[in-house]
């Protein structure tokens, strides 16, 4: 097994070490390892872009691969979950950002940091109605422009097309 994996990194930085590095950048971050296999950071919307920028540009963390970007509706709050991986160090981290403003949810875009975010953020905008500031081309991706509402929100109702069990 070891021999087979000799070219591949199997030892990654411990979550505590990662937490120590990241918590020194911005004071108001919340870290948790509960209920997930990855270290999860909760960040306030105003600190999001700064944190993301440093997660990628810092040499020790170097999270250069945004492999999943998920829109979330937690009931009261709307938000986005970012799954990040480093292709050099092979550690993984999860960043969550939330807002209680359901009428006009807004976050900063991360397209300038990871190009893949452009399409992913458009998908989140389409299905959750979350706006991304400074996004170069923020419009609906799958649905038509005149679609009413945001289907993946929990309070979305469509009596014709949705089968409720």
């Amino acid at each position, binding site marked *: 097994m070891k021999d087979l994996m000799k070219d*591949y990194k199997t030892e990654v930085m411990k979550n505590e070490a990662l937490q120590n590095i990241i918590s020194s950048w911005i004071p108001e971050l919340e870290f948790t390892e*509960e209920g997930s*296999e990855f270290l999860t950071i909760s960040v306030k919307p105003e600190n999001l872009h700064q944190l993301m920028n440093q997660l990628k540009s810092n040499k020790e963390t170097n999270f*250069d691969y945004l492999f*999943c970007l998920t829109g979330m509706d937690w009931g009261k709050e709307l938000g986005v979950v970012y799954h990040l991986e480093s292709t050099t160090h092979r550690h993984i981290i999860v960043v969550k950002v939330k807002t209680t403003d359901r009428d006009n949810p807004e976050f900063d875009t991360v397209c300038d940091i*990871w*190009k893949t975010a452009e399409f*992913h953020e458009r998908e989140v905008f389409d299905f959750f109605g979350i706006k991304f500031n400074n996004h170069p081309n923020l419009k609906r991706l799958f*649905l038509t422009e005149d679609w009413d509402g945001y289907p993946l929100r929990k309070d979305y109702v469509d009596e014709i097309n949705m*089968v409720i069990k």
Partner: protein
Amino acid sequence: MDTTIKNSNLKSEEYFINMGPQHPATHGVLRLLLTIDGEIIKKVEPDLGYIHRSIEKMCERDSYQQIVHLTDRMDYLSSHINNEAVCLTVEKALELEVPERVKVIRTIIGELTRIASHTLWWGVMGMDVGALTTYFYGFRDREMINDIFEETCGARLTMNYNIPGGLMFDIHPNFVKRVKDFIAHFKTKLPEYDTLLSGNVIFQKRTKGVGILTKEDAISFGASGPVGRGSGYSCDVRKHHPYSALDKVKFKEILKTEGDTFARYQVRVEEMWESLSIIEQLIDNIPEGDYKVATNAVIKLPKGEFYQKVETARGELGVYVVSTGTKNPYRVKFRSPGFSNISLLNHITVGGKIGDLVATMATLDIVVPDIDR
């Protein structure tokens, strides 16, 4: 009389054309809005959603056993691997250890799926650049794998063979023999692929140096699978995060550094050899034992978040499940490889010719239902 036309008299201007949604080279219902100046591409804008079924929303009302069946409607050429991804997520959440037999069978079937998908892609790739013969070669060899699958799971496209806890039923008694027959057959046919297409001068001229993607861009755009590996980006989930029996087999991750259309082509063709080797290492050593472990009729995952990534024929598929402890997931997200791969199409085709777009798009190996989940 002077008949030469002075260049200053010629006017060119940009215009839009539609490619698709019913165009054969878009491999499904995908519409590309092209901005072109003569034959030069200025911008490619994919218009998605023609066959979006909102699988993620449907998952929120379904049980975990039902979700498995939805996933092979995403990337239908990797249906076994998609099913496996959901099963692995559920098993990870339940901390359920499946028997060794299940792991080995899942790996063999996954690699057969990869070969089937790559042969079909190879045939279609040739056809896209005008070599119609490849289409028949590719489909001929894929047919053998489909027959093997049909005998074991009763289906040829949407398999539904994996279930949380193992497999729906044991392999057919003929399975081992037929897989071995296929390996023997395919080993004589795979070199023909190279003679017919890879070594063809016209084909090489159409693909070399076209649609170049650098390694940095591949990572930034979230490219995965052969698209990433064609740019020298080591992104094989089977190596970095092994699952099922993939940590017990020897195989090479194929990497090419050119990053052009031909490199992505070569990665897929060489990957078929590696998949054959993986199957050969396992086919004689399928452990005895049960083909599933019993789970509750109603599966309830513990409260929490679970993520599992697998390597489908197209790249990294991620399944992200958020559970509140009930029989339905609170939220399911499928991170599909095709979605990230199509997002870089504009980047690698701008400035090229419109004819090259078709060749480049063929090596992204797009399956549209995988993008429109």
